[in-house]
């Protein structure tokens, strides 16, 4: 089964790339897919703590690339989900420790054993980002409904197009429906109008995300959390299922507008 290789990137830091990667990995693995996620942020690793696997790291991605261990030795199995693995980034090295061709070689070796390879890109548009997108079949751009995040997302989408990695799909993260309603936050419509890309998910702002990261158990495990539900829906869409977008306001108008935008009316 040849894996689908999906990279999550954003341009701007702090928009929720790592959280999204961890949650999609959990949601996919909970639905019986075999998933491996790779932390592409060499020197600033975090996917391990979000997944709660920081105490199990022995080898990392740079050890694999430099031949100090076999690929299997750097793959950490999740505590709860037997089909979920993490390949952590090195913490004491920098992004120049690996190249795009190293990344492609690692991913090539993983393809035959998994359904999904998820790559968490570092912020920025430099080498770490280039490495992270090199092997991708599909790229998800994570953004927030804020001017700086949308601007950086646009820049990244432009680069993905010129590198022929497009068309990108958008995850609009940390949307606050109350602020959208009072016209103090860009709406999903506004963001899609500006960026002109396909939407794959809207994740509402949710305090459970913070609680989940404190505990090292991604919010996708939390059946009651709205953010968790949004991530589970994105995972289903990645598997090719058609899932309606969350009704963020429990009210018809916004919901219908989003459906219309997504072409699912």
């Amino acid at each position, binding site marked *: 089964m040849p894996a689908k290789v999906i990279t999550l990137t954003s341009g701007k830091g702090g928009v929720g790339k790592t959280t999204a990667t961890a949650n999609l990995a959990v949601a996919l693995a909970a639905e019986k897919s075999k998933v491996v996620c790779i932390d592409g942020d060499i020197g600033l690793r975090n996917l391990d703590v979000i997944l709660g696997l920081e105490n199990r790291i022995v080898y990392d991605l740079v050890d694999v690339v430099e031949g100090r261990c076999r690929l299997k030795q750097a793959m950490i199995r999740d505590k709860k989900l037997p089909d979920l693995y993490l390949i952590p980034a090195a913490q004491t090295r920098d992004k120049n420790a690996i190249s795009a061709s190293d990344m492609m070689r690692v991913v090539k070796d993983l393809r035959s054993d998994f359904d999904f390879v998820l790559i968490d890109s570092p912020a920025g548009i430099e080498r770490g980002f280039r490495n992270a997108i090199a092997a991708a079949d599909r790229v998800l751009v994570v953004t927030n409904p804020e*001017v700086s995040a949308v601007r950086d997302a646009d820049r990244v*989408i432009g680069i993905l197009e010129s590198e022929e990695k497009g068309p990108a799909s958008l995850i609009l993260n940390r949307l606050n429906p109350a602020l959208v309603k009072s*016209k*103090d*936050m*860009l709406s999903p419509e*506004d963001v899609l109008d500006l960026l002109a890309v396909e939407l794959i998910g809207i994740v509402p702002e949710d305090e459970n995300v913070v609680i989940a990261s404190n505990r090292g158990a991604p919010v996708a495990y939390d059946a009651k959390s709205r953010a968790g539900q949004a991530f589970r829906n994105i995972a289903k869409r990645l598997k090719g299922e058609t899932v309606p977008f969350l009704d963020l306001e429990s009210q018809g108008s916004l919901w219908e507008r989003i459906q219309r935008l997504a072409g699912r009316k």
Partner: protein
Amino acid sequence: MGFFDRLFGKKASADSAKERLQLVLIHDRTDLTPAELDSLRDDLIAAISRHVEIDAKAMQIGVEHDGRSQRLVADIPLKSARRKTRRSK
């Protein structure tokens, strides 16, 4: 956005955000600063004026977008060719 803001006709902050982004993204995508656009405009006027008389003051040039593709749009009014009246002495 509060009641009084609306009462005094203050623009919603989300609308400001969208308008500002629209302008920023045009320049980010085309790598064309307003100054460069002005200089392009001057070059266009010079080139076209060699062939036909135009109304340079009324000329409009800007970048429009359709989805993710950008388009340079120029609106250049031509001056109507006035018949050269021979001046009689």
